[in-house]
Each structure stands twice: as C-alpha cells, then as structure tokens.
C-alpha cells in the first residue's frame, strides 16, 4: 500500500464532513465544558452505519465460537480494508478531538476487546454486542495509584474466593478512561488465595456493571488535556462477583498475556491518532505561515519557519507510512511483533509531540491562545507519550526484542 485508495479517500471526505458538522461546532463544549463525548460517538455510529457493521462483526465472533475455533485472535488474512477505514475514522476525528477517539477506543477496543479475546460465549452474548454498538459504554481498569508501568508487579487489587464459587473484590483504580460514565467495567486484579506470594499470584479480570454494590466512581479528574475524554477513579470495597463475571470463567483464562494482547492493539491504534493530529497541525501551520506577515514578509519566507514546516511534513510522511505498513501486515494476516508495535508507537508519539509543540511556536502568541487550536492539540498529544505504555516502556520493549537470545 503506497496511498489511500479512491474508496478510502471518499470515506475520508465524508468523515471530514461529519466532523465539520457535528464535532467542530461543539468543540468548545467538548474541550472546555462538561459535554461527555458519548452522544457524538453514537451519532457517528448512526451516521456511518457502524451499528449494523458491528452487529455483523458480533455475529461472526459468535459463529466462530460455535465452530470451536477459539476466538477472533486467530490470525486471519484480509481485514486490511476494514482496518484502513478504521484508521481513517480515527485520524480524521483526531484532527480536532483526540479525546473522542480515546473514549471510543477504550470502550469498543479495550473493554469489548478483552471480553471478545478471552470471554466465554455466554459472556460475549451478554456484554459484547451492547459495547460494540455503543448502547453501553465500557471502561478497562488496570492502573492503580501505586501501579502504572509496572502494572502487574505493583498491583494491589485483589480477588478472594468467597467459598461459594464467587469472589470478593477490593482495590482502587485510577486514570480510568470513561470511568465516571461507564456502564460495563473490566476490572483487573490478582487472586489472593491466602498462600501465594503477591508476585506469583494469578491475574484475573472481572466484568462489572456500574450499579454493583461496593463500587464507587469519582467525578471526571481535571487534567492537562484530552478534556473530551472523561477520566476517573474507581474504588471497590468488598464487591461481590459471581463466577460468571470472571472473564473466561476460569482462573487461568486471562492472565498476563491477556492484558498484553490488549496493549498490542492499543499501540497500533495510537499511530492513526498521531496521523490526524500531525496532519491538522501541518495544515494550520502552512496556512498561518503564508498569512502571518512580520518584517514585511510572510513568516513562511524565513528559513527557521521553513525548517519547522519541513520537519512536520517528514513526520507526517513517516507516520502515514507506518500506518500503511500496519494495514498491509493486517491484510497479510501476520500482524506486528510486540517490539515493532512498540517502535511504531514510540516514534509516532514523539514525532507528534514535537510537531505540536513546534506548531505552538510557529503561531507565536496566537499559538498559546485557545482560539488557534494548536495549543489544544499540543496538550492532547502529550498523553500519547504516557498512556498505552510510556515512551520509556516502549524503549524497553524494543531493546528487549533486540537483545533477546
């Protein structure tokens, strides 16, 4: 793949039309007010017929299950076309509102994804379809106040067997996307059987409904950017979960690898987000460089400004090419190694941060003002170096891949 196809370009155009009509006019409220993104997400799904597509996807998942072939995780070829369309949707929305994509990705990608990957058929039937169609909003909770990068090592949340086939859950989760509003929560914790040392305990994950007794949720936390994606804290005090809420209905179903797979898909989606942010910054900067006159000429005529623009274009090309490779690999059914996905995420996140901060610089004082949008993209971009694995953790994963064996 060396360029978007005619159909993909056509989809880009209609998504852009939707963004112009439905997101741009509400941007102020989404980014500076308290307008949760969920109605916009649902409108997006209605507009582009995504609900029907998700229903069809759900039926394929269930059909595969009936064949006994396991789950969607099995490598399948094709699918590149669908992935390309998904990337276009993500990047076009991120030109204005990376927060919406985060909220959407966590709900349909991480939360539904975790249940699709390891859940039993009954669990999929109960929770997956409403999540995929956005009828219900999902949250995926692994991070805790004392455990982030070292997600499993420092994890304090526990599940204890209640002696009746069920479990008692305790713990606090923080920075949880959609936490304040989610209907369905995937809660990841360690099995405390009273004898195993914390570092050797099994990782379990449970699906909880928002009204579960003992579960409390904070209001959205105030943060640097990504205001259109509500982030909150969840705390569980002696929450009772029955065995059919344990993903896979087996203490060995999820484990560390289940969460790791989730990290992998997260990393690739982020590259598409980066493309949108960089693309928009470049567009804004080129037009500003032509219009803004200082010392009697447009600032685009100064070489120092040209350097910024040229570097932004290089970043845009590189990120787009990474995305094309991701699509090709998906189509071939091979996917990316964990180390390569990490490399993509690391590069894209750093390049995007550099582009957005330089965009603020290129706009001067206007760049610091909300009206010109680059400051928002800059604040939003920063989170990409932090969530879905910090830059430092990506570096560690790449190096591990290189030094292995």
């Amino acid at each position, binding site marked *: 793949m060396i360029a978007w*196809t*005619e*159909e993909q*370009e*056509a*989809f880009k*155009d*209609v998504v852009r*039309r*939707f963004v112009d009509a439905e997101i741009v006019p509400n941007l102020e409220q989404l980014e500076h007010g308290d307008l949760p993104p969920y109605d916009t997400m649902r409108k997006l799904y209605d*507009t*582009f*017929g*995504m609900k*029907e*597509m998700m229903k069809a996807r759900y039926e394929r998942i269930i059909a595969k299950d009936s064949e006994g072939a396991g789950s969607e995780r099995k490598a399948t070829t094709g699918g590149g*076309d*669908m992935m390309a*369309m998904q990337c276009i*949707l993500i990047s076009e929305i991120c030109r204005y509102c990376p927060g919406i994509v985060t909220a959407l990705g966590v709900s349909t990608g991480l939360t539904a994804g975790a249940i699709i990957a390891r859940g039993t058929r009954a669990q999929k039937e109960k929770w997956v379809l409403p999540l995929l169609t956005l009828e219900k909003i999902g949250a995926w909770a692994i991070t805790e106040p004392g455990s982030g990068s070292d997600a499993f090592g420092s994890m304090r949340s526990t599940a204890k067997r209640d002696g009746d086939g069920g479990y008692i859950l305790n713990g606090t989760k923080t920075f949880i996307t959609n936490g304040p509003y989610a209907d369905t929560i995937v809660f990841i914790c360690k099995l405390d059987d009273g004898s195993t040392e914390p570092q050797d305990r099994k990782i379990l994950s449970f699906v909880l409904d928002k009204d579960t007794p003992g579960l409390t949720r904070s209001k959205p936390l105030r943060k640097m950017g990504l205001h259109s994606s509500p982030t909150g804290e969840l705390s569980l005090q002696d929450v009772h979960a029955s065995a059919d809420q344990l993903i896979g209905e087996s203490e060995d179903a999820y484990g560390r690898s289940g969460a790791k797979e989730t990290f992998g898909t997260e990393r690739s989606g982020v590259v598409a987000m980066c493309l949108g942010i960089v693309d928009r910054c470049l567009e804004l900067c080129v*037009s500003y460089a032509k219009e803004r006159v200082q010392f009697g000429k447009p600032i685009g005529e100064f070489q120092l400004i040209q350097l910024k623009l040229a570097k932004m274009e290089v970043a845009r090309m590189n990120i787009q090419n990474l995305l094309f490779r991701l699509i090709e690999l998906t189509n071939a059914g091979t996917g990316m190694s964990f180390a390569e996905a990490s490399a993509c995420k690391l590069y894209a996140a750093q390049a995007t941060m550099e582009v957005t901060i330089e965009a603020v610089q290129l706009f001067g004082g206007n760049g610091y003002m909300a009206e010109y949008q680059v400051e928002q993209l800059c604040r939003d971009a920063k989170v990409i170096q932090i969530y879905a694995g910090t830059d430092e953790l990506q570096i560690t994963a790449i190096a591990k891949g290189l030094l292995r064996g």
Partner: protein
Amino acid sequence: MKILVCLKQVPHKDARLEIGSDGTWIKEDGIKFEINDYDNYALEEALRLKDAGEAEVVVATIGPDRVTQSLRTALGMGADRAIHVWDDSLANADSLGIAKVLAAVAKEENFDVVFCGLMSDDSNYAMVGPMLAQLLDIPHVTAVVKTDFENGAVKVEKELEGGTLEVSQVPLPCLLAVQTGINEVRYASLKGIMQAKKKPLDKKALSDIGLDGAAVAPKLSIEKIYTPPKGEGANLLSGSADEIATQMVGKIKELGLL
C-alpha cells in the same frame, strides 16, 4: 423508474484558489475537489425516490481521472452505477458541449427523470440543465425546491425571486435542476463506500457515445479570469457589535437613507 443524476466535480470549498499561468482558469494541481454542492441535493432527491420504491439511480460525470472519486462517493451514498465520460478535447468544453455529451449518454437509455444541480459552484452558468432538456426534447424545471412524484408525473415547486414559489405539474420524462437546501443530504455509510468498489463504473470515450471532438467544440471561450482590484471608498467600522451597530445607524442617517 430509471433516474439519471448529472454530477460535476468542482474545487473543494476550502481550497485555496490561484489563477493559472495563462490567466483563463485556476491552477488545478494540488487542490482538493468535491461534488458540486447543488448536485449533492440532486443526488439525494434521486436516492429518496430509490428508497421509496423501485428505482435505479445512475450517476454520470464528465472530467479527467480525478472525477472517479466523486463517482465512488455517489455510489457509496447509494447510486447503483456510474458513467464517466472523458476526452481531452473536453478540457475547454462550454455548457453546450457538456450538455451534448450528457444528452448522448442519456439517449443510450430511457431515463424517466434526469436530475442535475441548478448550477455549478465553479462556473455558475446554470445552463447545462436547460440545454440538456432541450437536446433531449423533454420539459424541465429549474431552481426546484420540492418534488412530488405521482402517476407518471411530478408536481414541482420552483423558487422565484423574493421567496415566491411557482408550482407546476410536469409529465415524465423530464429534467429537474435542483436548488440547494431542498433536502438533507445523507452521508455515505462505511458499508456503502466499501461496497462502492464492486458497483459498475463505465468509462466512456466520445466515440463510444457517437460523438467526436468537432461535435463538442466550444463556441464560447474564456478570455481571462481575474480578481477585481480593491475598490476605493469602503468604510471599515470597528469596535464591539453594539458600537458597530450604533456607528452604522449614524452613517445611514448621515447619508439621508433613513
């Protein structure tokens, strides 16, 4: 019912336009294009007929290779098939030339209704529709703001000056040149766009429809296009909205207009 929708691809409304080196048209390289806005409404009107019952919607356009993307969009929105006509001799075609090509396309099949936009966003002639109707020898209505199809005829409302409406009853086949705002244009769905690749898109040369360069040679040529020079005497008011309003009333009184 068989419906033809004539589409034109025009420069995107957000494109930065620069005049080309020969001064007779804009520079087309590097800018984005889109479906002419009026034509979107025409297409939507046709698709609504399709949604309401049995109708085949065919879209046709004339233009270089880039126009196929607009045809894909139209197919993604729900049109059944597309026809793309091009010949280098059409590069400078005038309205009559375009109407002749579309007439030749339309004559290959028996369309009950031909929809087009009232005019194009880029050249504003508003002539292709009426000329095409003339060449096909069918009745037409321009500036259509409402249609009501029943028993082989259509009741059409047309917009006149100052918001007055004119109602007429037109037998089929006919041509309707649609005004913007007549309906709410749908978005192509993701599934629709993914299926568009599989729908037929016929590429035709002039010879395929019984024409040649001479038959469509332009009778009208553009001498030059230019941006009008900045005028004198404009009075720019500044301040808050309230202040500007006060100044404006003062100015109007000063000029004795009030």
